[in-house]
C-alpha cells in the first residue's frame, strides 16, 4: 500500500532505510527540523542543516522514488538561549523559498520554560507573517500535558487557524483536547516512549480517524523507520478494512499537507472526500 510518513528525520538515517521504506510502499515523507542529539555551536551549523533539508535529502529520497518535503525552525531544546535562537530564526525566511518547504516546524516546548515559550511565540509569529503552516512538537513524558496546553493557547492567542496546524506526539491524555480544539493530531510510533502501533490503533478506535495521522519520527534514537507499515499490519490483524490505513496514512496527510502550495499529492492521490 502506498503511504506517507509525515514525520521522519532522514538526516539521521541511512540510504538503506530509504530503500526499505520505498519497498514497503512509502511514496512521500516530510522532515521537520529537530534537535540533532547535541546542541549546535553556532547559527552557521543550522544554515548547513537547512541546506541539507532543502537540497541534499530531496536528492537522496528521489533516488528511491520518494518525494521529500521539510519544515524549518529552531527546535525547543535549543531555544533556552533566546539570543542564539533569534539568530537561527533570522535564517529561516531565506530558506522558505525552497521548493520543498511546507512550513515552520517542529516548533513547540521541551521543558515548558519561559524562554522556550518566548521563542515558540516568535516562531508562531514568523509562520503567521509568512503565511506558513505549522508542525508542533509536544514535550516528552511528564511535560507533555502541560506543554500541549501551553502551545495550543499560544497558537490561539496568535489567531492561528487550527486547521493549518498539526500537533504531534499526541497520546491518550492529549489527543481529545487537540482534536476538540480543531487542530490536526499526529501519533508517533516509538518502541519505548510515545505510542506503540497497538496504542495508536486503540486511539483511532476511540477518537476516530478524522484529522489524525501516524508517523515514525525515525531519528538517531530508538525508533523504527518502518513503524508506519507495521501499524497498518496491526490494523489488519484486528480486522479493520484496508481503507482505514489508506485514510490515516495517505488521504489524511494529503488533505493536511495540500494546504501548502509546495506540496504535490504523490501517485495521483487526489483530495479525499469529506469523510472516509
Amino acid at each position, binding site marked *: 500500500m502506498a503511504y506517507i510518513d509525515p514525520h521522519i528525520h532522514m538526516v539521521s538515517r541511512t540510504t538503506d532505510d530509504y530503500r526499505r521504506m520505498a519497498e514497503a510502499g512509502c511514496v512521500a515523507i516530510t522532515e521537520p527540523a529537530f*534537535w540533532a542529539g547535541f546542541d549546535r555551536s553556532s547559527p552557521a551549523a543550522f544554515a548547513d542543516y537547512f541546506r541539507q533539508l532543502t537540497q541534499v535529502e530531496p536528492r537522496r529520497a528521489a533516488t528511491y522514488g520518494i518525494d521529500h518535503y521539510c519544515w524549518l525552525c529552531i527546535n525547543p*531544546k535549543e531555544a*533556552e538561549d533566546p539570543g542564539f535562537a533569534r539568530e537561527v530564526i533570522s535564517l529561516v525566511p531565506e530558506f522558505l523559498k525552497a521548493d520543498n518547504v511546507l512550513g515552520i516546524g517542529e516548533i513547540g516546548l*521541551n*521543558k*515548558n*520554560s*519561559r*524562554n*522556550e*515559550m518566548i521563542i515558540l511565540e516568535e516562531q508562531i509569529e514568523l509562520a503567521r507573517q509568512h503565511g506558513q503552516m505549522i508542525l508542533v512538537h509536544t*514535550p*516528552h*513524558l*511528564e*511535560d*507533555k*500535558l*502541560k506543554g500541549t*496546553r*501551553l502551545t495550543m493557547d499560544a497558537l490561539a492567542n496568535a489567531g492561528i487557524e487550527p486547521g493549518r496546524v498539526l500537533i504531534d506526539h499526541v*497520546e*491518550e*491524555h492529549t489527543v*481529545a483536547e487537540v482534536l476538540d480544539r480543531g487542530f490536526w493530531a499526529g501519533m508517533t510510533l516509538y518502541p519505548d516512549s510515545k505510542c506503540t502501533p*497497538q*496504542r495508536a490503533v*486503540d486511539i483511532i*478506535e*476511540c*477518537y*476516530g480517524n478524522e484529522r489524525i495521522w501516524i508517523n515514525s519520527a525515525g531519528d538517531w534514537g530508538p525508533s523504527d523507520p518502518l513503524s508506519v507499515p507495521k501499524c497498518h499490519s496491526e490494523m489488519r*490483524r*484486528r*480486522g*479493520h478494512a484496508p481503507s482505514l490505513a489508506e485514510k490515516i496514512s495517505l488521504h489524511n496527510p494529503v488533505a493536511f499537507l495540500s494546504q501548502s502550495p509546495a506540496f504535490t499529492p504523490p501517485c495521483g492521490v487526489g483530495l479525499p472526500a469529506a469523510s472516509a
Partner: protein
Amino acid sequence: MPSPSCPLDARKAVDLYFMEHRAKLLDIAAFLDRLDRAAAGATDDVRLRAMRQAIPLLIDGEGDRARRILELFSDHSAEPIPEAHTQAAIGVDPQGGYEAAATPQTT
C-alpha cells in the same frame, strides 16, 4: 466522540494479545523483585512512588487506564517554569508527591 470500535471480540483479543501482555506483566514483577535485591537507596525514588500509585489503576474496574496513568505521571501545573535546567524528562512529575502511604509496597 465516536463510540469505541475495535472489530475484535474479547475472546479474539485475548487470543491475540495475552501472551504479549503476560510477558510485560512478568517484566514489571521481575523489575520490582530486582529492586528488592538491589542495595538500598532508591526505594523512595519519585518514579517508583508514581509506579506504585499507577499499578492499582490497572484493576480498579474503571476504563481509560492508559489516559489516567499518563495523567497521573504528568505535571499539572499551568505556568511556564522560570528556566530549563535540563533537556531531559524522567517519566513522572518530579514535584508530583506520589504519597506512598496509601499504595502497596514492593516488599
